[in-house]
C-alpha cells in the first residue's frame, strides 16, 4: 500500500479506463475539473461508470462527491461563478460540448436528492411530472407510467388507493421512494442518487437499499453516500474521493478489503470522515 503522492495526475494512464467488472461503459468522466469562483472543487477527475452497475461515490464531507454527481447531469449550471474543464461523455456524447441540449440530457439522467423533495401536488402528478413537461397528454400512457414507476420504487401497494391525494401526506421514506418513482418514470439511462437515505430512519433506509439493488436490473445507478456500510451493501463499484480528487476506484470488495492507498484505508476504517 502506498501513500498518495502530493502532486497527482491521479488519472490512470489508460484513458478511458474500462469500468471494473467488465460492464459496458455508460458514462465517462474525462479529466474533469470544476471551480466555484476561486475554489478548485474537482481536480482532474477521470472515471468510467458501467452499465447496470451501482457505482458508489464515497469520501469525507466536502470531498466533492456531490459536486461530481451534479456535474454529470449539469445541475451545477444553476450556480453562478462556475467554471469547468475537461469533459463528461454519456455513451460517447459530450455533455459539456458547446450547444448541447442540456434539457434532453437531463432527461437521460434522472436524479434523487438528499432530502426528499416531492412537489406539493398529488402522488400521481409527482410521478408524471417528467412526462408532462415532455408534453405527454395521453392518459393511458400517464397511467401506465404511474403504475410502472410506483411498482418500480416499491410504493405501489402502499399508495395505489390514494394516488390522487397530496404527496405531502406520505411519510419521509415513502416520499423518498416517490422521488425515485418520479426519477424513473421517464425511463432514464442513468439514475443519480445524492445521499438518498441520509434523512431517513434505518427501516426506510434498508427498504431504499433493497430498492437500489432491484433498480440495477434496469438502470445504471450512481449513488453518493456517507455511509460506508451502505456502499458495501449496494455498490458493485466504489470510488473514493478526497479533497476534490478521485483517489481510487475499483470493485467494492477490492476497495473495502485491499485498498491501494493509505487515505482510502484510513477513511474506510473510520480514522476520518
Amino acid at each position, binding site marked *: 500500500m502506498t501513500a498518495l503522492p502530493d502532486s497527482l495526475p491521479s488519472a490512470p494512464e489508460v484513458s478511458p479506463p474500462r469500468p471494473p467488472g467488465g460492464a459496458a461503459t455508460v458514462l465517462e468522466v474525462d479529466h474533469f475539473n470544476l471551480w466555484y469562483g476561486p475554489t478548485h472543487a474537482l481536480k482532474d477527475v477521470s472515471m468510467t461508470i458501467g452499465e447496470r452497475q451501482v457505482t458508489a461515490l464515497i469520501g469525507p464531507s466536502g470531498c466533492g462527491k456531490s459536486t461530481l454527481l451534479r456535474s454529470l447531469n449539469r*445541475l451545477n449550471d444553476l450556480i453562478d461563478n462556475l467554471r469547468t474543464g475537461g469533459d463528461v461523455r454519456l455513451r460517447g456524447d459530450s455533455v459539456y460540448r458547446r450547444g448541447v441540449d442540456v*434539457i434532453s440530457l*437531463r*432527461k437521460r439522467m*434522472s*436524479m434523487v*436528492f438528499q432530502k426528499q423533495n416531492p412537489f*406539493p401536488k398529488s402522488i400521481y402528478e409527482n410521478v408524471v*411530472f417528467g412526462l408532462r*413537461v415532455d408534453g405527454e397528454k395521453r392518459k393511458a400512457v400517464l397511467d401506465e407510467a404511474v403504475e410502472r414507476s410506483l411498482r418500480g420504487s416499491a410504493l405501489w401497494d402502499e399508495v395505489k388507493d390514494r394516488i390522487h391525494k397530496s404527496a405531502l401526506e406520505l411519510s419521509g421514506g415513502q416520499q423518498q421512494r416517490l422521488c425515485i418513482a418520479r426519477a424513473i418514470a421517464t425511463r432514464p439511462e442513468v439514475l443519480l442518487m445524492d445521499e438518498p437515505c441520509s434523512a431517513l430512519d434505518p427501516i426506510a433506509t434498508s427498504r431504499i437499499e433493497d430498492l437500489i439493488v432491484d433498480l440495477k436490473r434496469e438502470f445504471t445507478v450512481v449513488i453518493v453516500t456517507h455511509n460506508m456500510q451502505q456502499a458495501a451493501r449496494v455498490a458493485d463499484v466504489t470510488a473514493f474521493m478526497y479533497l476534490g480528487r478521485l483517489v481510487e476506484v475499483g470493485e467494492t470488495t477490492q476497495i473495502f478489503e485491499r485498498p491501494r492507498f493509505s487515505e482510502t484505508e484510513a477513511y474506510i476504517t473510520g480514522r476520518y470522515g
Partner: protein
Amino acid sequence: MADASKLPPLPPSPYGRFFRDGHPWIWTTRAVTAVLLLMVVGIVGIVVFNGLRTFWPRRLVRYEMKDGSVVVGEEIRREVRRVGLDSREQEEVFVRVGNREKYGGNDFRWIVAADVKSTSVPEDLLSFERMEHGPAYGRVRQVLEADVVDGRRVQKVVAEGKGALAALERGIVEAAERRASRLELQEGEIDTVSRAVDDVNDRRRWLARTVEPDDPAFAVRKAELDREEATLQERQQGLLQKVGAVLKEDRRHLVLLEDGAGDPWPRPVAISQVLRIDAVNELSFVGRVGLCVARFWRFLSQPPREANMDGGIWPAIYGTILMTLIMTIFVVPFGVLAALYLREYAKQGWAISAVRVAVNNLAGVPSIVFGVFGLGFFCYLVGGWVDRTFFEQRLPTPTFGGGGILWASLTLALLTVPVVIVSTEEALAAVPRSLREAAIACGASKWQTIRRVVLPYASPGILTGTILAMARGAGEVAPLMLTGVIKLAEDLPLDGEAPFLHPERKFMHLGFHIYDTGFQSPNVDASTPLVYSTTLVLLGLVLLLNLGAITLRNRLRKKFRTGVFG
C-alpha cells in the same frame, strides 16, 4: 478541571433580575401594543357607533317653550355653549326639526334648555321620509285629489282625520308603482331612443365634416338622417307623453300635513314626494331595531338623493367594487410578470438593483402625483388617441378622452404595482431550492419549472401582495378625483345595456363620497352622520374583499405547505 463546588458563586446582577431580564423593555412593548389596540378599537368603534346611529330611529320630542311656542323634533345632543358678549355658559339642545322648506331651509335648531317649560313624547307623531327636503315630522291632516274643472284647479278632500293616515299609505303604494313604471320607461326605452338621437346627431356632424354640401350624396344622406330623426322624435314624443301622464297623475294626489305643533302646512304636497311613514314614537325596541336595519338596507341599496345629503350609496359601492376588481385584474399579472423577470431571469447587478430601488420608491410617491400622471397619460394621451382612432364621429365630445373607470383603475394599478412586485419577489425567493432542482433534474426547462412548480408554490405570497394592493387601492381617493370619479353618476359602469361594461363611464366611489358629503355639502348637520355611515360601509367592503382573498390564500397555503416534513 476545577471542582464545581469550589467555584465562587456568580456575582448578583447590580440591577437585580428586574433589569437583567429586560422587564422594562417587555413592558414597553406591551404598552405600545396596548396603545395601538386602543387606537384601532377606538377608530373602528367610533365609525361603527356613529355609522349605525344615523339609522337609529330617535323619538320625536315635543318641547313646550316658556314663551308659548312649540318645537318638535329629534333631539340630537345637549351641549353647554358660551353665548353672548359676556360669554356666559348655557345649556342648549340641538334639535332636528325637519320640515326644511317650511322653516326656511334649515331643519336644525338650537334651543335653550332653560327656556323649555315641558317636554313630552306624543304617540301619534309621525316621521315622513321624503324624496326632497329631508324628513318631515308631524301628522296627516287631509288627503286630497286635485282636478281641473273648467280650467280651474279644484281640490277635493278624500280622507280626513283618522282615515287620512290609511289613505296616505295607500296613496304611497300607488305612487311607488307609478314611479317604478315611469323609471322603467325612462331608463329603458327613453334612454335607448335618446342614445339613438345622439347617434344621428353624431352622424350628421360627421357628414358635414366629410362630405361637401354641394355633393349630390350630401342631400341624399341628409334626407336619410332627417327621416330617421323624425321617426325617433315621434317615438320619443310618444314616450314622453306617457311619462307626462304619470307625472300628471302624481300631481293629482296630494296630502296636507301639519307640523308637530299642529299648524297645517301652507300648501298640500304631492303624495309621490312621500316615501315612507314611520310612527317612531309608538315603536317598541324590536321595532326600532327593525326600522334601523331597514333604513340601513335602503342606504346600501338606493342611489343618493338631494346632492348626496339623503338617500343611499349603492352606485358608490358598485363603483368601488368594480374599480377595485378592474385594478386587480391589471395589477396582478403586471406585477407578477415584472417580479418574475427581476427575480428569475434578470442577471442580478447594479441595473436590476436600480430598478428595484425605483419600484420601491414608486410606493412613496404622493398619490395625487399618480392622479396627475393618469390624467395626462391615460385620459388625455391614450384616451385622446383612442377617441381619434375609434370614436372620431363623436368628436369633439370625448368618449375615452376624459376620466373614466378604466383610466382610474389603471392609475391605481400603477400606484399599487410596487406592493405586488415586492411581495411576489419575496414569495419567489422563498421557494425551496430543492423543489427547483427536482423539477430541473426531471428535465423541465426553466420556464416549465417556474410555471409548474415555482409559481404555484409562491401563489399564497403573491395573493398576500394582491390583498395589500386591493386594500390600498380601494381606499385611495386623490388620484380618482382627477381620473374619473364624480359626485353623482347617472349610469353604472356595468349594466344590462350592451356592451355591459362601459370602461369610459365616470363612476362614484365611496372614498370620494365621504369627502363629498363631508366637505362639499350645503347642509353640514344633515350630511355629517352619512360620512360615518359611508366610512363604515367602506371599511366593511375592504374587510370583505380582504377576507375573500385571505380565505383563498389560506386554502392555497394549506394545499402547498402541509406535511412537507412529515
